[in-house]
């Protein structure tokens, strides 16, 4: 019994220590904005590896999710004779939820784990330490550009996911199942509000991008510099990002769409 409390205590201490280190890490990374501003090439390089390299998985997944929504939505809605609402259903689910959430989960798996492993290996091979000894702040040089890249790329990826998803839903609904093209779009357009739905979706993906990138970078920076430490940190990145994204999604949905 005593053991349990001891363990609970040390787990709490560990958790708070991590939150504290994470907060300092975030502030430190934010302080590097000026440094990166003077070296835009660093940012561009990271946008390539975080954004461009995630493009394919995001667009293919978006297409399939949209197609599945088109099929399932059609089966459900045709029971009520409301196939014309298929466009609304596909677009609302994508723009509000699936676009930001699924693309953030894919982002954590594709880009987040790569970031953690990269930074963990840099730590293990003393590159971060070496940079420090060359009087270059490794957080500003390594972390800040990656953080910014994640922040910029996540909403773009989510927008791509939703747009391609809507096209996928259209392809199935209108092209294959014969829903009327005009009512597909017009119903969608009359129900989806730009500010309320699309901007809120973008805000969501910005928040997810912030947390998923921060988690990935911090886990890499904070990991034990051994091969086992790096592999554990990579796993933690994917698991913790998924929890963070889904948890934040619930909170944001309640705040945004709860009237």
């Amino acid at each position, binding site marked *: 019994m005593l053991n349990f409390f001891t363990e609970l205590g040390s787990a709490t201490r560990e958790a708070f220590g991590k939150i504290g280190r994470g907060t300092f890490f975030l502030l430190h990374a934010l302080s590097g904005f000026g440094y990166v501003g003077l070296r835009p090439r660093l940012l561009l390089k990271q946008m390539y590896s975080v954004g461009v390299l995630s493009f394919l998985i995001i667009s293919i997944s978006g297409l399939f999710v949209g197609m599945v929504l088109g099929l399932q939505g059609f089966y459900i809605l045709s029971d009520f004779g409301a196939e014309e609402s298929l466009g609304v259903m596909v677009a609302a689910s994508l723009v509000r939820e699936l676009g930001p959430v699924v693309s953030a989960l894919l982002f954590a798996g594709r880009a987040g784990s790569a970031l953690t492993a990269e930074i963990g*290996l840099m730590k293990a091979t003393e590159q971060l330490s070496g940079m420090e000894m060359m*009087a270059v702040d490794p957080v500003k040089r390594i972390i800040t550009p990656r953080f910014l890249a994640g922040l910029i790329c996540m909403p773009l990826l989510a927008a791509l996911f939703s747009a391609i998803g809507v096209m996928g839903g259209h392809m199935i609904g209108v092209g294959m199942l014969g829903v009327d093209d005009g009512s597909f779009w017009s119903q969608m357009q009359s129900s989806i509000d730009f500010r309320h739905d699309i901007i809120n979706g973008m805000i969501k993906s910005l928040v997810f991008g912030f947390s998923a990138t921060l988690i990935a970078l911090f886990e890499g920076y904070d990991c034990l510099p051994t091969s086992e430490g790096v592999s554990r940190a990579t796993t933690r990145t994917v698991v913790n990002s998924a929890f963070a994204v889904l948890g934040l999604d619930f909170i944001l949905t309640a705040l945004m769409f709860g009237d």
Partner: protein
Amino acid sequence: MSNNEQNIVSIRNLCFSRGARKIFDGVSLEIPRGKITAIMGPSGTGKTTLLKLIGGQLRPASGQVIFDGSDVHSLSTRELFNLRKKMGMLFQSGALLTDMNVFDNVAFPLREHTRLPEPLIRSLVLIKLQAVGLRGARMLMPNELSGGMARRVALARAIALDPLMIMYDEPFTGQDPISMGVLVHLIKSLNQILGLTSIIVSHDVRETAEIADYIYLLADGKIIAQGAPRELEQSDSAWVQQFLHGYADGPVHFHYSADEYFADLLSGVN
């Protein structure tokens, strides 16, 4: 301040612990300018930690590290960064940045800390690479280099900003005899030609003794012995003799401390 002029680094009463383990317990030593000073000792005695303390990457529990007249651990971050431009460090792994080629790695400190025009940077980098004999390897990526070459590139990078002092962390570990010879030669000649001060942390006795002017032997958080290589050779301390000649048993026991052998064996029987 004659002491400061003579010694580039003075360490006074340095104490440092990691968890409950005391790594340093009142270490004091001086690194004279223009010389090669070696810090030797068995693995795990915190030799690398000592370099990190000198570089200000770690904070001591107590004691002072004076580098070129300033107390390393009382400086602000900005001052510390400026101080580090005057010291180079060669990491065991080389610590080259893996996403840049050899040329860009050597140019990295120059591009970060100076506003020199690119043609001048190019000339400087080629001069440094020529000094370590790798001018022809400038377009290679770090993963295409052998361990010895990586260390030489790292050395070229460490001297890029013309520091006052270079710290070598285990420069000879895991090298074949030829690269070892090359490194020994490089460390010695760079020290002479560039008027550097060098600190070598190592447990490779033969190579280190060959080039060091002065050696500190470190064990159990204290300095056990010090002196020029030849003086240490003639030391009558059993520990020094064991370390220098690599005897299997001596003051450092072959067996990790344990209960009495027979008692331990028999304790399972009852």
